[in-house]
C-alpha cells in the first residue's frame, strides 16, 4: 500500500491519521513527485485535513519531549523523500508503543530522524555563521543563500534577536522566498527581481562604505593566517567549498 501526499507537513500528519483509521498491513509514504503508479500496489491519495493533522500533532506533542519535537520538525525541513516515509513510520511506531519508544536508537526510523535532524541543525548553524550581509544603498542588510535544506524557518529567531535595530533580508534563492525584518517583525516575502541581482547586488545598489568594510574584512581574514600552520584539508572540512560563494572573505578583491 502506498500513501501519496503533497509534501506538506499537514499532508504528512494527515497520512498518519488515515493510517490509524484503516490500519493497512504495510504502507509506504511517498510524495506526488516521487510516486510512480504501478498495477500491483494499491495507493491512496491523501487529502490534507487541518483538523486531522492537528490531532496527530497534538498526540505527538504529548508523547515526545521538546528535543524530539524539534528533531521531527528539522527532519521534515530536510525535504528528503526518504525521510518523509521515516517520519510517517516513526509516528506510527510512537503511537503503537508505550511511552519512551523514541529512545530506541536501535530502530531504523528513530535513528534516521535523529541523524538527519543533526544534519539540518548543522546547516542551520552554518547559515548563522556564514551569512554575510551587504549594506545596501537604501539601508537594508541583504544576503541571498541557497541552503541544501529548508532552514529559513529555523534561523528566524536567531537573526531577529540579534539584529533588532537594523532592517535585513535573508533570501533563499533556491526555494524563492525570503525573510524580511522591518524593525518590528519578520515576514515572509518573495521578490520579483532578476535572479542575478538577488545573488549579488550591483555596486549602485550598495551603500557607499560597503566596499571598504568588505575589504577590511578580507584583509583581516588574511592576517589571521599563520603560514607555518597551513592546513587546507582541515580548512575545507570546516568550510565546505559549496559555502565559499557566501563568504566575503573568499571573494577576490
Amino acid at each position, binding site marked *: 500500500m502506498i500513501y501519496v501526499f503533497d509534501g506538506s507537513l499537514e499532508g504528512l500528519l494527515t497520512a498518519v491519521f488515515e493510517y490509524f483509521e484503516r490500519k493497512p498491513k504495510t504502507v509506504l509514504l511517498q510524495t506526488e513527485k516521487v510516486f510512480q503508479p504501478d498495477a500491483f500496489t494499491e495507493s491512496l491519495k491523501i487529502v490534507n485535513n487541518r483538523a486531522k493533522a492537528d490531532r496527530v500533532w497534538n498526540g505527538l506533542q504529548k508523547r515526545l519531549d521538546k528535543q524530539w519535537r524539534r528533531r521531527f520538525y528539522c527532519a521534515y525541513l530536510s525535504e528528503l523523500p526518504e525521510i518523509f516515509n521515516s517520519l510517517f513510520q516513526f509516528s506510527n511506531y510512537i503511537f503503537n508503543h508505550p511511552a519512551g*519508544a523514541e*529512545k*530506541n*536508537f*536501535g*530502530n*531504523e526510523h528513530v*535513528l534516521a530522524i*535523529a541523524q538527519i535532524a543533526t544534519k539540518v541543525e548543522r546547516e542551520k*548553524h552554518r547559515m*548563522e*555563521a*556564514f*551569512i*554575510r*550581509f*551587504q*549594506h545596501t544603498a537604501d539601508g537594508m*542588510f541583504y*544576503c541571498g543563500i541557497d541552503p541544501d535544506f529548508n532552514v529559513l524557518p529555523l534561523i528566524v529567531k*536567531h537573526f531577529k*534577536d*540579534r*539584529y*533588532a*535595530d*537594523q532592517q535585513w533580508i535573508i533570501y533563499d534563492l533556491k526555494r524563492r522566498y525570503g525573510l524580511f525584518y522591518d524593525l518590528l517583525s519578520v515576514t515572509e516575502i518573495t521578490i520579483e527581481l532578476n535572479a542575478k541581482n538577488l545573488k549579488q547586488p550591483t555596486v549602485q545598489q550598495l551603500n557607499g*562604505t560597503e566596499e*571598504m*568594510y568588505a*575589504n*577590511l*574584512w578580507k*584583509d*583581516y*581574514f588574511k*592576517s*589571521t*593566517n*599563520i603560514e*607555518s*600552520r*597551513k*592546513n*587546507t*584539508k*582541515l*580548512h575545507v*572540512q*570546516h*568550510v565546505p567549498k559549496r559555502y565559499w560563494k557566501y*563568504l*566575503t*572573505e573568499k571573494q577576490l578583491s
Partner: protein
Amino acid sequence: MSEHLREKLNILADAAKYDVSCSSSGSDRKNTNKGVGNGHSSGICHTYTEDGRCVSLLKILLTNHCIFDCAYCVSRKSNDIERAAFTVDEVVELTMNFYRRNYIEGLFLSSGIFKNADFTMERLLRVVKKLRLEENYNGYIHLKTIPGASDELIKEAGLYADRMSINLEMPTESGLKLLAPEKTHGEVIRSLDFVQNQVVQFKDEKKLIKSVPKFVPAGQSTQMVIGATPETDKDIMYTADRFYKSFALRRVYYSGYIPISNDTRMPVLGTQPPLLRENRLYQTDWLMRFYGFNVRELLNDANPHLDIDIDPKLSWALRNLQHFPIDINTADYRMILRVPGIGVGSANKIVQARKFGKLHIYQLKNIGISYNRAKHFIKCADTPFQLKDYQATQIKGFILAESNSKYLKTDNNQLILF
C-alpha cells in the same frame, strides 16, 4: 582614512593572532535594549583560517607598542617592527560594522603595554564602555586583563566584558623567568584570583537582588605557549589541571610556539611548530573535562609525555587492558566513555538504546561509534567468540595499520578530536 585604517588593521591583527583563543561561547547576554547583538551560548565560528582555526572574534591589539621585552612575543620592545595604535573610535567602528554584517561574534581586544598597566587598561575600558553604553552593543567581548592593572579598573571592565583572560605564557614559573624576566606567575594568579572572587561575589548578590549586573558571565581563560621551553607534557597538564580547579577557568589554551626570532634561549627560526603535540594536549584537556579522566591517569612519573603516534585515550586503554573488554549492554556509562572510538554522543545513545534490547554490532555502527577501533575493547550481543587475548602492542598495531595516514600526519590540530 580607509588606507590608513587598512594598514593599522593589518599590523594590529597580525600581532594579535598568536593568542589562539577565539571562543565566543558561554555568554547568554540578551539583546534587551533593542540594540544590536546577543550572546550565543555555544558560540559561532564565522569562518576558519587557512590552518583550520575558528574565526569568531575580531581579534586585535589596541596597540603593539610595548615597554616590555618578552622573548616569545612579536611585539617585544627590542623587535624592529612597524608599530601602530588604534583610536578608541576606530575599534568601535570596526567592531560595529563587522558585527552588523554578521562577520563576527564580537571583539577580542588585547594590547601591548604602553606607559604602564593602568594607562593601558584604562584605554581598553574606554572601548568596551563605548560599545556597551553608546552603541547599545550586546555582542561578545573578550578582554585581556593587563597584568598589574589596578583592581578598580579590572572590576569595572568585568561589568562590560563577557570573558576576561590573562596568559600564563609559560607552563612553569622557571620557564617564564627565563624568557620574560619582568613577569611572574604570581601576578597572573593574583589577577585570575581577583576576577574569580568578583564573579562569585556578583553571583551571590544576584541571587538576592535580581538587578545586580553580570560580571564576566563567560568566565576566564588562559593560554600557555608550548615548546618554547623544555617542560614535559606532565608539567603542562598538571599546571592546566591546577588552574582549572583553582580559578574555575572555562578554558586553557595551548599554543605551539612559532619561532619568531633567533634568540638562543628558544627554538630557532624555521623550526616547525609542534602541532601534533599541541593536538595531543588538547585531547588530554578534553579527556579531563568531558570524559571523567583524572590527569594522573593520563600523565604521571612513569609516563611524563603523551604518545605521539596514538591519542591519549587509546594510550590509557592500552596501558589498562585489565579493564577490558567491557560489555556494551551492561557496562557503566563512565566505562563506555572510556572506550577508544566511542564519544560522548554515542555513549549517550548506547545507554538509551540498550534499554530496548541487547545491542548488536550493526546498531553500534549505525549509532556512529568508530567500530574498528572500539572492537578491541568491547563485547556486544553478537561479538564473535575470540580464542586468544591480544597484547597491547598487537592491538596498537591493528589500529595503527587501519588509521595509519590519519594519525601520523603532523598537520592535525585541536579540531580533530577522537
